[in-house]
């Protein structure tokens, strides 16, 4: 038997160790990113969620001004945590549209009364069809849509204090 062949197992094992060890240093990604970032927002139309506020359609974007599209729900706890930061973004002049997932008008009404209402429009996505259509895999998630209706950025999870300047910057860049 050729001598070098006997060292191949050790080599293979070393490669295995590097793979396993690297994964300990860099933990697995638990979030699934939308593959549509950088691509145009797909076409959709959502009925209004609450009285007195319009629903959301594809045509509301691509108006020359970047907007935030926030995927949320009244039953989602992190959504309560991010509500004040959305209000701050709103106060900074950002236009925010909401997509409410599997929700009812009463629950959303109560949610907005309690946590504030930063939304220009809220669409009702009762069966997460639009959520899946834009490649979002959970609530809350926030998309930056540029003036031409392209998805410029996706923020997964609740918006924390430190995310606010990042989002403002992304909105500025998307102009």
């Amino acid at each position, binding site marked *: 038997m050729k001598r070098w062949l006997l060292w191949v197992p050790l080599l293979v094992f070393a490669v295995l160790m590097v793979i396993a060890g690297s994964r300990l240093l860099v933990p697995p990604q638990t979030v*699934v*990113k*939308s*593959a549509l970032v950088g691509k145009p927002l797909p076409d959709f139309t959502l009925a209004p969620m609450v009285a007195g506020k319009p629903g959301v359609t594809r045509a509301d974007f691509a108006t020359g001004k970047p907007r935030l599209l926030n995927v949320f729900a009244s039953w989602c706890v992190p959504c309560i945590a991010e509500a004040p930061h959305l209000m701050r973004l709103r106060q900074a002049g950002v236009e925010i549209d909401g997509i409410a997932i599997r929700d009812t008008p009463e629950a959303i009404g109560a949610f907005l009364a309690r946590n504030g209402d930063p939304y220009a429009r809220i669409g009702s996505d009762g*069966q997460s069809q639009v959520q899946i259509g834009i*490649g979002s895999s*959970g609530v809350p998630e926030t998309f930056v849509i540029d003036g031409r209706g392209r998805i410029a950025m996706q923020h997964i999870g609740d918006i924390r204090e430190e995310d606010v300047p990042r989002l403002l910057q992304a909105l500025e860049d998307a102009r």
Partner: protein
Amino acid sequence: MSLLLSLVLAAGAPADFGYVQIPDAAKEAQAAELMAELRCLVCQGQSIHDSDVDMAADMRRIVRQKIAAGEQPQAVRAWLVERYGSYVTYDPPFSWTTAPLWLAPLLLLGAGLWLARGTLKRRRK
């Protein structure tokens, strides 16, 4: 008990494609095969066919609606991959990054045969 039942009530409305099969058995078979190969995005260790969570039901609904409307399973899969990347399918599409994975069985078989052949030939009387 009434509280318990109301909890169950809120959990979802079963009478739709998220929970009920396509009447056409051939189409349902196509959908079932595809759903078993699509990964549930929030539970992460299960296919949408096997998962209990609402999001999996919402994905099943889309799959069944599209298949019932006459789309091919490959097209439905491609539609989802377009949105979530190859993470969403348990059947990794062949590409430069997955080439080593798909070629591994052939390479292993080749290497194994080479090892065994060398041994057997050398030892044959």
